[in-house]
């Protein structure tokens, strides 16, 4: 099977499950597919730095959570009627998805810029530990900051609105998420095929050479890191709309690990790989979770086996080649 067929299969599966959910009148299937699409999108963000750029960020929960808190806080203020900021400029809450998405993207990008500037000065193990540590910093901040629920999190009672659509309808919300995912993947595919994308791959493969032809490795990495943070933040905002709840657990380092697992299970540097990975993870969670309380034990063993023996993930396995060069 070629990579294109594998990708098509992922898309069809992602569309088929909610359709089946509608036909069989099992709305939880639609919610499950929505979850896969959102978690997969977070993985697409990470894949840009991890798969294409070779930067092992173990702190992507930070962007996921920040996107989530943007959605939660803006919606909370819109509901309560309090402004988010009264000074120096008056800034109200909103329940418009478009505005929330934009703010989430900007906040995710800014945070990634800040963390990237510091952590990209290092490589290897330092980079892994530092991205993890900064994500943990934000986690502890949200836990100890009482204004938005602290450890208990912040519920939002209604899904945010989008141009008069009934967003509380599971299928409508799934289609919104799916559309957003398609747009994100389209943009990422353009980015990785652009001159910038080629430079990013080249920096991963041999930074010294790239520098010798006059391209700054740090800059390329930083731009990719910022884009990645923005995408993952968007996914975080959608995730909060799905659950109508945001809590520090979105920022916990388990979330960072899970996003990484989606990318690996799916196959690194594959556009639709993280979606396949998230789908497999959610599937395992459902199936093993219905059989045993200790499903994480088995997922752990399975993951070890995949990393040791099946490099390339689902997409690499089905399309029969390693994904080193896209």
């Amino acid at each position, binding site marked *: 099977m070629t990579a294109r067929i594998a990708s098509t299969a992922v898309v069809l599966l992602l569309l088929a499950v909610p359709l089946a959910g509608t036909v069989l009148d099992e709305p939880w299937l639609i919610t499950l597919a929505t979850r896969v699409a959102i978690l997969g999108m977070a993985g697409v963000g990470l894949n840009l730095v*991890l798969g294409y750029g070779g930067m*092992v960020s*173990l702190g992507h929960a930070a962007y996921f959570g920040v996107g989530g808190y943007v959605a939660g806080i803006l919606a909370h203020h819109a509901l309560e009627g309090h402004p988010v900021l009264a000074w120096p400029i008056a800034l109200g809450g909103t329940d418009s998805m478009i505005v929330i998405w934009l703010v989430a993207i900007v906040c995710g990008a800014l945070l990634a810029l800040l963390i990237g500037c*510091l*952590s990209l*000065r*290092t*490589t*290897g*193990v*330092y980079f*892994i*530990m*530092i991205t*993890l*540590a*900064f994500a*943990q*910093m934000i986690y*502890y*901040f949200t*836990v*100890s*900051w*009482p*204004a938005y629920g602290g450890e208990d999190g912040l519920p939002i009672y209604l899904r945010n609105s989008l141009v008069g659509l009934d967003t509380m309808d599971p299928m409508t919300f799934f289609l919104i998420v799916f559309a957003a995912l398609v747009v994100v993947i389209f943009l990422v595919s353009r980015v990785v095929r652009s001159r910038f994308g080629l430079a990013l791959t080249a920096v991963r493969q041999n930074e010294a050479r790239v520098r010798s032809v006059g391209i700054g490795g740090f800059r390329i990495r930083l731009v990719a890191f910022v884009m990645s943070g923005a995408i993952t933040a968007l996914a975080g905002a959608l995730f909060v709309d799905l659950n109508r709840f945001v809590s520090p657990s979105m920022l916990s*380092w388990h979330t960072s*690990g899970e996003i*990484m*697992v989606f990318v*690996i299970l799916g196959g690194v540097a594959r556009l639709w790989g993280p979606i396949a990975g998230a789908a497999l993870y959610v599937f395992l969670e459902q199936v093993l979770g219905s059989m045993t309380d*200790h*499903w*994480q*034990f088995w*997922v*752990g*063993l399975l*993951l*070890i086996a995949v*990393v*040791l023996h099946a490099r390339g993930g689902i997409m690499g396995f089905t399309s029969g080649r390693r994904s080193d060069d896209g």
Partner: protein
Amino acid sequence: MMPATLIAEQVLNGLQFGVMLFLMSAGLTLVFGVMGLINLAHGSLYMVGAFACAAVVAATGSSYWVGPFPSPGVVAPPGSFWLGLAASLAAAAAAGALVEVTLMRRLYQRGHLDQVLVTFALILVFSEGIRWIFGAFPLYLDIPPSLGGTVPLPGGLDYPLYRLVIIAAGLAVAAGLFQLVSRTRLGMRIRAGESDREMIAAIGVNIRALYTAVFALGAALAGFAGAVIGSITSVEVGMGEPVLILAFVVIVIGGIGSIKGALVGAILVGVTDTMGRLLLPALFATFLEPADAAATGASLASMLIYLLMALILFFRPGGLFGKVA
């Protein structure tokens, strides 16, 4: 103004916290320095040590011993903490050696990404495995009766004896570790392994056994820390993860692979964190409403060590005692 005894007490608490962080960081930094391995599951070994200690204390103390954990509500007579401590060392070292022989060995030649993934998966396996055996409720481990009570210190401060013993024990372990690495044959091999692993294999050192020994040593230190701290806090699944991440911060500050860096970094982190939690709310209280001051101070204090890390990273990307990153 804050009483001086309170500040002195918190400095000691910070020192005690730092010394324990050192025990965690030392293993991590050794394993990274010698084998080039990043081990996220180091926190699980800490947890294994704590659970082994709690289980042995429960088993030796209670005549109603029926299962792997004491029935809730039954107050068992205290068992032997010292046996428990020995068990924590043995269990963590054994778990470490087992993991090294079965898994880690395959990872030395792989990239850091694979190491992160496998050790992340190991955390799931360890945490869920422990929950399977011991159940989801925390176990309570008391400090040994002989180390209970407080000691009067000069200046009118009564400080818990157990915490003083922890500080002394931690510093003793640190001194022992320095001696081990700088004076013994094993230490010589460890240092040789850090600088050139092919060469020391070529001159006939059994590199596989060396790696297993280093890993088990680091695991034992983590297990020891788990047992000692578990009796101040509680013994529960997931207890190792916050400590693991702090140990990462310590290593980043101290410089990867440097034991001296781990000691300095650990004490810096321990004292900064403890003092921040004490002083920042008080500082904000001088110009904010009490409730706001408490909230702002607490949130900032929880971020303080990461800000410290960012600062050190900005000026010295390789850490205080590290080689260039």
